[in-house]
């Protein structure tokens, strides 16, 4: 589903290269975990996947379902099924969460040539999704992410993901800021989305999340490259021994 080939990318403003020859393949149905020290380029990779303009791809390619997505803008990538749960979700003052959901869902439907959702159907979907994430409907009347606590923002990201039903889900540190119960609820939400035609990429620092959402593959990102890949035991190994060993091997 996702094939990243020898990707090099730099910051447009100052030319600093952040992603330096990164290779990664994630198949449909797969849950891939990406780990790596702070500043290694995990969030940057997620932004580049989603099409953020601050970064420029200088070499390599990103194939999604066999097609290069480099020429697509963020909205086009989103409507083609790529979803990014942000490490730091943005606040959108004055725009009620509910309205935002409606606009987003209907824009995506429109791009697929479908009719906008009827209000009752929309409400039903939102209510069901919110209930499954233990979210209060009253919160959805508030402007999106404005004044939400850290954990509430993360939950709101997963709520959007559930409602938009993407094919490729990228979760950037969705576990940080979640309390123990919320971690369980959010993990259940993600697990419910596991399906043979969907790929999930989970960026995390902690093995704890991977106990809830068991990954098929684990990749270590370091200085803009995947330096080691393995199965879930790699995450346990990192938890026990830190990154030093893996980095040493790669050097």
């Amino acid at each position, binding site marked *: 589903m996702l094939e990243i080939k020898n990707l090099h990318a730099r910051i447009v403003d100052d030319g600093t290269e952040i992603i330096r020859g990164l290779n990664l393949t994630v198949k449909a149905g797969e849950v891939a975990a990406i780990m790596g020290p702070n500043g290694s380029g995990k969030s940057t990779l997620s*932004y580049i996947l*989603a*099409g*953020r*303009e*601050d970064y420029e791809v200088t070499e390599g390619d990103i194939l999604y379902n066999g097609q290069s997505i480099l020429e697509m*803008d*963020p*909205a086009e*990538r*989103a*409507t083609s099924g790529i*979803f*990014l749960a*942000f490490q730091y*979700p*943005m*606040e*959108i*003052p*004055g*725009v*009620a969460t*509910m*309205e*935002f959901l*409606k*606009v*987003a869902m*209907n*824009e*995506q439907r*429109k*791009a697929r040539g479908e009719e*906008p959702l009827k*209000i*009752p159907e*929309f*409400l039903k979907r939102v209510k069901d999704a919110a209930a499954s994430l233990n979210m209060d409907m009253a919160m959805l009347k508030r*402007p999106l992410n404005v004044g939400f606590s850290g954990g509430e923002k993360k939950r709101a990201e997963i709520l*959007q993901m559930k409602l*938009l039903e993407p094919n490729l889900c990228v979760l950037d540190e969705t576990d940080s800021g979640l309390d123990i119960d919320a971690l369980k609820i959010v993990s259940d939400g993600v697990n419910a989305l596991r399906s043979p035609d969907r790929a999930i990429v989970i960026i995390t620092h902690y093995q704890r999340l991977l106990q809830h959402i068991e990954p098929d593959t684990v990749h270590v990102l370091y200085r803009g490259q995947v330096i080691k890949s393995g199965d879930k035991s790699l995450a346990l190994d990192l938890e026990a021994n830190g990154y030093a060993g893996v980095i040493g091997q790669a050097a």
Partner: protein
Amino acid sequence: MPAVQDTIDRVRKIDVDQYKYGFQTEIAMDKAPKGLSEDIIRFISAKKDEPSWMLEWRLEAYRRWVTLDEPKWARVHYPKIDFQDLYYYAAPKSTPGPTSLSDVDPELLRVYEKLGIPLKEQEILAGVQKTDASELEEPSDNVYKSGRVAVDAVFDSVSVVTTFKKELAQAGVIFCSISEAIREHPELVKKYLGSVVPTSDNFYATLNSAVFTDGSFVFVPKGVRCPMELSTYFRMNEKNTGQFERTLIIAEEGAYVSYLEGCTAPQRDENQLHAAVVELIALDDAEIKYSTVQNWYPGDAEGKGGIYNFVTKRGDCRGHRSKISWTQVETGSAITWKYPSCILRGDDSSGEFYSIAVSNGYQQVDSGTKMIHLGKNTSSRIISKGIAAGLSQNTYRGQVSAHRKATNARNFTNCDSLLIGDQCGAHTVPYMEAKNATAKFEHEATTSKISEDQKFYVMQRGIPEEEAIALIVNGFVKDVIQQLPMEFAVEAQKLIGISLEGSVG
């Protein structure tokens, strides 16, 4: 933001200039000769069958006007206007004056139909639909079809029809064109016309006093709550013709009225002049809510054409505990020069000004308000949201003053500006003056750019760039949109989205 979804549909349907109301209509017109003179004023007055006192009033204004110079203090630039190169009167031939609907030229009715404003009452009522209680349900797309709005339709220099007059009359409310009011209710017009904006007020107001052609007149008697929204729809159609609208609204003791004006004009290469005067008078315990959705043709992408909108609007809170509230959504015009103001004369009176001013392309906006505190315990509130995109310049200019005797005057001002792109400008020019030590004035101002982070986030959910910006901007102006009569809020949101079209990329 139900608007956003529709905004794109609408925008797509509009060609390069994006101005959907830019069509012209061929209608046989009765025009005054070009230029301005005492004879032209006599011509206008005669056309309107005016009493002699009205003509005298106009002539006096004209004689004063010839001695005045155009104001220069606003941050707007335009070539000198040749006032002799304009037509001051143009009326559809078939409408010699206010008529019943059956006398109106069907071609004219089609113009308003095309603008989304049906004028046939029976059709309006037939089209009234049951509104859904669901909070997310979009209000009926077209408010004028909701049956809750009475419309006075002004085409160039004359009012062609006023709807729901009978229903309003039953409640004691007078709603008609100013021309009709001058003939039918001279005592009221004489008493109030020019009592808020004197003929000597300023260059454009003086010009307007001399040549005003039509506009609306509203009188809500003591204790009456006007049973429906009142609205005037101004259409400038004729080439090289100025529109000089004059509106007068009076709310007697304890009365309430909510009034809305909308306006459009065809796309033309030349600039057109619109110089209006609006006067509001609120007596003891009365309340007037005046909303504007201004959508005059803004000019093309190169800055050619567009309306010069030089407007004097002022409300007089003449009575104790009276209240006047201005809400404006300004998206059109090449140049906007407009400061709807409140004179807080009565004790415990209050004034409000809520404004959204969107500028794009080469538009220039210099707008704001004046709150003049004269009575005791008067309060005012100013919320201004300026959005500048393209190469436009957007200035908020405000004045808050407390007179020596105005003990306990209160003002709160909040001016936020949002910039889209880096070639536009936003400016805030507040003046504050308190001659009474008990006055408490608060002022907040912010200027921000639309953040790339926000835009990326919104687009990541599948919302295209233009819609993402419209969504963020509509969030930014939410506080003001909420002040509009509910029926018009959706319309205003759409308009904002449309006027920002082309602001990126």
